[in-house]
C-alpha cells in the first residue's frame, strides 16, 4: 500500500466572468467526487491541482509539501507534483506497447528498465490485461485502453490521482466493469483521489465524499450517502433523481413554497437536529418523482398545485413528465396509469404529493466554509 498524504487546496481564480473560489481537503487515501453542472469549475479545479493552471490566489498542499503558493509565486511543474491524471481519453502513447506504457512512469522516475517492466506486467495482470502486454494501443478496444491507462497512472505511484470523467467515453456495456476495476484498484493502492464526473454511479461506486460545485463555489458537501440521500442543492438533487422545492418554514409546521403552503414529514435521512420545520427558516423539500401524482381533476387533500406539462420522456416502466416551473417538478408515472389526456406538451394538470412523501430539511448554504471531510 502506498503512503499518500492529505490534499488541501484553497484557491481563487478568475477566467473572464467566471470566478472559482474553493477550499477543500481530501484526507490521505480517501476519494472525493467533485460534481456539478457544466461550467461549474470542475475541470478548472483539476487543472489547478495538476499545476496546469495558476490560481490568482491561494495554495495547494500535499501533506506538508507545498505545490502551489501564490504568495511566494511557487508553482511546482507537473512532473514534480506526483499527481497522476486519468481522463476520459486514455491517451496511451501510441508508439509504445501496453507494457511500455505502464512501465513509462517507473522508468521516468529512475527504476531500471527490467524492474520497471516486471512492475508493469504485475499492474497489467491486476487490471486484467496481462495477456495483451505486447499489444500497441491501436489494437486495444476503448475499455482495454482505459484499463491500461489505469495501470499506467497507478504504476507511477502518484501521491494524488485526478480522475477527469474517466468513464465518459466508454460504452454502457464496458463502463460498469471498468468502474468496478477503477474502484478496486484505487482502494487497494490507497491513493488520495479527486474524481470529477457527471455520473452519479461514479460517485457512488468510487467516492467517499461528494462536493457539489455551482458557479465556482462549493454548494454542498458531505459523505456520498448523505448528499445523495438528502440533497439540498439542485444539481445534487438532479443527480440523485429527486425534486427539490425551496420554501420557508411556517408557524404551523407547514412550509411556504411557490406551489403553496405544503405539509411535510420530518427528514429522516438528514442531520437529526435539523429535522423540524422552524418558522422563518429556509427549507428544502425533497420529493421523489414517483411520489408526484398527476390528474386532470382537482384532487382532494393537501399539497396540490395546478401546472403545465413541459414535455414527456421515457422512463423505466412508464413515462417521466417534466412540468413547467419554476419550480420545475418531475413526475414518474407507471405505464398503467398514464392518461393520454395530459400526455402532451402544454397540457394543464393537477399535481398532488402525499405529505408523508415530502421530506423537509434545511436549505443548502447554511453551512458555509471549507469542505472538510472527516478522516
Amino acid at each position, binding site marked *: 500500500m502506498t503512503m499518500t498524504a492529505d490534499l488541501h487546496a484553497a484557491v481563487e481564480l478568475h477566467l473572464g466572468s467566471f470566478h472559482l473560489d474553493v477550499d477543500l481537503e481530501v484526507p490521505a487515501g480517501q476519494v472525493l467526487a467533485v460534481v456539478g453542472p457544466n461550467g461549474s469549475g470542475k475541470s478548472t479545479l483539476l487543472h489547478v491541482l*495538476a499545476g*496546469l493552471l495558476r490560481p490568482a490566489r491561494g495554495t495547494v498542499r500535499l501533506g506538508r509539501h507545498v505545490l502551489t503558493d501564490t504568495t511566494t509565486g511557487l508553482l511546482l511543474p*507537473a512532473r514534480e507534483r506526483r499527481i497522476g491524471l486519468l481522463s476520459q481519453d486514455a491517451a496511451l502513447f*501510441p*508508439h509504445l506497447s501496453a507494457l511500455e506504457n505502464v512501465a*513509462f512512469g517507473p522508468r*521516468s*522516475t529512475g527504476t531500471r528498465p527490467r524492474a520497471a517492466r516486471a512492475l508493469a506486467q504485475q499492474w497489467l495482470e491486476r487490471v486484467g490485461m496481462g495477456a495483451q502486454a505486447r499489444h500497441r494501443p491501436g489494437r486495444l478496444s476503448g475499455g482495454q485502453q482505459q484499463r491500461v491507462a489505469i495501470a499506467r497512472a497507478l504504476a507511477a505511484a*502518484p501521491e494524488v490521482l485526478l480522475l477527469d470523467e474517466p468513464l465518459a467515453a466508454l460504452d454502457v456495456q464496458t463502463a460498469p466493469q471498468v468502474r468496478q476495476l477503477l474502484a478496486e484498484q484505487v482502494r487497494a493502492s490507497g491513493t488520495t483521489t479527486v474524481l470529477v464526473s457527471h455520473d452519479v454511479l461514479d460517485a457512488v461506486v468510487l467516492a467517499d465524499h461528494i462536493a457539489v460545485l455551482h458557479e465556482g463555489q462549493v454548494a454542498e458537501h458531505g459523505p456520498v450517502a448523505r448528499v445523495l440521500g438528502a440533497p439540498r442543492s439542485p444539481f445534487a438533487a438532479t443527480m440523485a433523481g429527486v425534486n427539490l422545492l425551496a420554501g420557508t418554514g411556517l408557524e404551523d409546521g407547514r412550509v411556504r413554497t411557490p406551489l403553496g403552503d405544503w405539509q411535510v414529514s420530518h427528514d429522516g435521512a438528514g442531520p437529526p437536529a435539523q429535522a423540524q420545520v422552524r418558522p422563518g427558516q429556509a427549507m428544502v423539500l425533497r420529493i421523489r418523482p414517483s411520489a408526484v401524482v398527476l390528474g386532470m381533476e382537482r384532487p382532494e387533500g393537501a399539497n396540490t398545485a395546478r401546472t403545465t406539462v413541459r414535455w414527456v420522456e421515457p422512463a423505466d416502466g412508464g413515462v417521466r413528465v417534466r412540468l413547467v416551473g419554476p419550480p420545475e417538478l418531475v413526475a414518474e408515472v407507471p405505464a398503467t396509469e398514464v392518461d393520454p389526456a395530459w400526455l402532451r406538451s402544454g397540457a394543464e394538470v393537477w399535481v398532488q404529493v402525499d405529505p408523508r412523501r415530502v421530506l423537509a430539511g434545511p436549505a443548502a448554504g447554511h453551512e458555509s466554509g471549507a469542505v472538510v471531510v472527516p478522516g
Partner: protein
Amino acid sequence: MTTGVRTSEPATAGLTRPGRPAQVRGRLPVWVLALAVLAVATLVLPLVALFPRVEWASFPAAITSPEALFALGLSLRTGAVAVVCCLLLGVPLALLLARAPARLAAVLRTLVTLPLVLPPLVGGMALLYLFGRNGWLGQGLDLVGISVPFTPAAVVLAQTFVAMPFLVLSLEGSLRTAGDRYEQVAATLGAGSWTVLRRVTLPLVLPGLAAGTVLAFARAVGEFGATAMVAGNRPEVTQTVPMAIYTAFNGAGVDRDAALALAVLLVVVALVILIGLRDWRRRVAW
C-alpha cells in the same frame, strides 16, 4: 421460389470481401478528373521520356567511369554530411518552431521558408559573399588558414542551406499534428523534459522525421545552383552528380550518353527511396 423472396445470401456476395463492405465514395466531376490525369502526365512523361534515349549497351561503362564514380561518391558523402548537419540543427529548430508563441513562430517560419522559394543560385551567391575571402565569416576563417569556397565543405554548406527547410517544415508539421497532449501525460508520470523528448516527442514524429530526412537528402544530392556558385564545378574535387550531368550534357557527342545514364540513375534511386519510405511508414503506422 417466387421472386422477391430474399435469400440469406446477399446478392453482392463475391463482389466484396467478407466483413469489409465496399465504401461508396462521392464521384469527382469529370473535368476535375481530366485535369488531374493531365497533371500526372505533366509530372511523369518528361521522366519517362529519358528512358528510350539511354544507350543501354554503354550504360554500365557510363556510370562506372572514374569521373562518374567520383561524382557519385562525392554526392553521397556530401549529401550524407549535409543531412547530418540538417538533423543536428533542423530538429531543434523544428521543436522551437512548433512550441514558440504564434508571432515568433510566424517570423521564424518565414525565415526558414526563404531558402525554399529563393533561386538556389541566389542562395549560393549569398553563401559566397558570407564565406568568400572578403565575406564576414570568410575573413575570420582566412586568418586561421581555412578557405571554404570551392572545396567539398562548400558543397556541404550549399546542400545544407537548401535542404534544411525541407526537414524543418516537414518535422514541424508532424509536431503540430502530434500536439502536446502526450507530453503533458508524460510529465504527470514524472518524466523530465529530456525523457519526454527522447521517449515521447521524437518517437511520435518518427515518420515525419524520416520523411523530412529523405526529402532533405534527395534535395541535397540534387542540389545544383547554390553548389555551382559556392563550390564550383572542379572535376574530382567538387563535381557532384548534377554538376557532372551538366558538364557532360554540354559536352559533345558521346558524353551526352554519360549524362543521360547518370540522370536515369538519379531517377531510379529517387523512386526506390520513395517506395522504401512508403513501405516503412506503412509498417510503423500505429
